[in-house]
């Protein structure tokens, strides 16, 4: 029982990441009709927003303390991050919370990146075949990740969670089990809650705003909405910006769980596409449900008990499920007829 609970918990954060990426992918297909292979790169760029903010915040002021000497007899260098010397304790807190704080930076940055990408490239591909869209965005993804590699190097850059969220929480105790059975890293829980919040935000936005209504109508029937004389172009741009932002935030918050490196986007992209297909191309609830479902299934598949019966199952479970779903339910769990099918 506790083992099962633990695996479900373990799957939630990864599932949250899948769901967030898949959500953005689905919105982009649904409204713009574009298959965006660079979506994983946006996830990665978000993660590197956190890296950049942390790097900026930790820029240090170096002073020499003549009263203290090092072992070599030179004056001791005292390194204090500028934020601390300027803001004192608040600076320390700022540094500690660099990951959540970088959200404030990432929102405008990712929106901007999305808008530039849509205006500069994607919009020329609305009328082109899906194969062309896949190819051009695949190229873009490579370019983006190579740029990041050039700027930040090839090695993963660990991003610590804030001190308060660093520990473990004993989930078992909370549900009345013995202590020590279901111990769960705090940040993963934070990530799960964060992903739920963002998903809720996106759904609320689509459900309750006029803008969202037009987007949903567009997903149901793109041509008609265009015919209604609604300025579809501008909305497309904004939609793409939002999708980019969601992917970016998903990546940013994931950094304490997985130290970001330049190719993390590609790794997640392939899985997220599978998630989208499993959920049903064009279905937002499908994308979310499939994201969590696959995250949890993956974590079950990596249990030793399962692996001893089906060796290697943890490596292929997601793809296997995708294959089965696509063959049994061609349109995915919640897909509609006729989306992306020619």
């Amino acid at each position, binding site marked *: 029982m506790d083992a099962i609970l633990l695996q479900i918990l373990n799957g939630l954060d990864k599932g949250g990441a899948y769901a967030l990426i898949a959500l953005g992918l689905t919105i982009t297909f649904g409204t713009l009709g574009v298959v965006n292979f660079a979506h994983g790169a946006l996830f990665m760029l978000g993660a590197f927003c956190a890296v950049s903010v942390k790097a900026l915040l930790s820029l240090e002021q170096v002073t020499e303390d003549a009263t203290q000497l090092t072992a070599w007899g030179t004056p001791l260098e005292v390194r204090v991050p500028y934020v601390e010397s300027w803001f004192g304790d608040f600076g320390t807190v700022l540094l500690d919370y660099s990951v959540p704080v970088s959200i404030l930076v990432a929102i405008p940055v990712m929106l901007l990146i999305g808008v530039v990408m849509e205006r500069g490239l994607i919009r*020329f591909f609305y009328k082109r075949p899906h194969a062309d869209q896949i190819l051009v965005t*695949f190229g873009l993804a490579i370019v983006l990740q190579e740029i990041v590699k050039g700027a930040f190097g090839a090695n993963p850059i660990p991003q610590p969670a804030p001190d308060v969220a660093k520990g473990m929480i004993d989930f078992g105790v909370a549900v009345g089990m013995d202590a020590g059975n279901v111990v769960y890293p705090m940040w993963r829980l934070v990530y799960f809650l964060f992903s739920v919040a963002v998903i809720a935000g996106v759904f609320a936005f689509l459900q309750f705003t006029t803008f969202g209504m037009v987007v949903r109508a567009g997903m149901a029937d793109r041509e008609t909405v265009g015919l209604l004389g609604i300025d579809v172009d501008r909305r497309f741009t904004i939609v793409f910006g939002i999708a980019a932002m969601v992917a970016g935030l998903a990546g940013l918050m994931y950094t304490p769980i997985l130290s970001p490196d330049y190719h993390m986007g590609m790794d997640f992209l*392939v899985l997220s596409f599978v998630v989208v297909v499993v959920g049903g191309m064009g279905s937002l609830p499908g994308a979310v449900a499939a994201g969590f479902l696959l995250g949890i299934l993956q974590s079950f598949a990596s249990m030793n008990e399962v692996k001893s019966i089906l060796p290697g199952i943890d490596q292929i479970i997601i793809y296997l499920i995708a294959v089965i779903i696509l063959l049994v339910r*061609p349109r995915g769990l919640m897909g509609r007829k006729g989306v992306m099918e020619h």
Partner: protein
Amino acid sequence: MRTLTLSRNDLILLAGYTLVVLGGPIIMAPLGAGYPDLLQKFVIFGIFAVGFNILFGLTGYLSFGHAAFLGIGSYTAVWSFKLLTMNPLPAIVLATLLGGLFAAVIGYICLRRTGIYFSILTLAFAQMSYNLAYSVLTPITNGETGLQLVQSDPRILDAAAGRDYGAVLPSSDLFGIPMNGYPGFYFCGVVSIVCFYLAIRIFRSPFGLMLRAIKSNQNRLNYTGLNTQPYALAAFVVSGMYAGLAGGLLAVVDPLAGAERMQWTASGEVVLMTILGGAGTLLGPVIGAGVIKYFENIFSAFNEGILMAAFDFLPEPIQHLMVNVTSLFVGEGWHLTLGALFMVIVIFLPGGLMEGFNRLSALVAGIVRGRRDGASARGA
């Protein structure tokens, strides 16, 4: 009577291809590519791309998983070396067959769907193969280390023929001719000429016509009484066999096989080769493969020293600036060039280099004709 000869243009194409391959060491020398390792890559990846083009270029089905068959071909060939003989012929025959067999199974499943669903399915299968090769299949693939020859391999056919390689690690040889260096290149080159010839035949056959019809309008083809599924599957299997063969040849010239050959970025590379050259054309994929392998080789060899020398003629600050900018794109940064190239081609030249050539030659022909007309008008 059914003649089995090609049209004049196709014969010229085949003759030209044969000439370029056989004369490769001399023709490529001025470009700095006249050495066997690179020449081998040209023809091997040429085979891979030509086969991929039979699927993607003709039917329009975009597979993102063909590297899996390449990897399977390599593993098969190395196993053939280990168990049977160091002779490359059984190795490549088995690699081709196994590539085809896997393609038949995977293709049968993936072709239940079309469009992007098909692409995702192929991607899923390739990733599964890759992940399995790295994990549970380690007894067959030797996991991360990659599959290698060892001196104590059984090689039963060689043993039966009384052939003993002594204490050294054997390398592949065709009845005594070693398969590295130029002989290896010529072996691969001859195989690639045969493959190219077969591709021409497929292109010009009724079967090829049906494949092009699938790309053009699959619905119409169905309502015209043709069952598109087996046609697409046959194309998938043929391209899987080409990929298996290419993978086998990679192992022939360098007898080891690793899982990274199956990664989906490797599948992306063959897509790029095909598109860059011109999907659906005969020569395009070969050219695409050549260009990419050439630049990969040249670009990734560049380092700061070479760049500094190259920009030596500039004043120092500008020299440094140029070196810094260009070094982003070469050496380690070669992939950046690759990605950018991908985008540029898809954006500006969807028909690939072949379309570029055609446009260019049409332009030149137009100018020439214009001149001639002008001249004759003046003359009249």
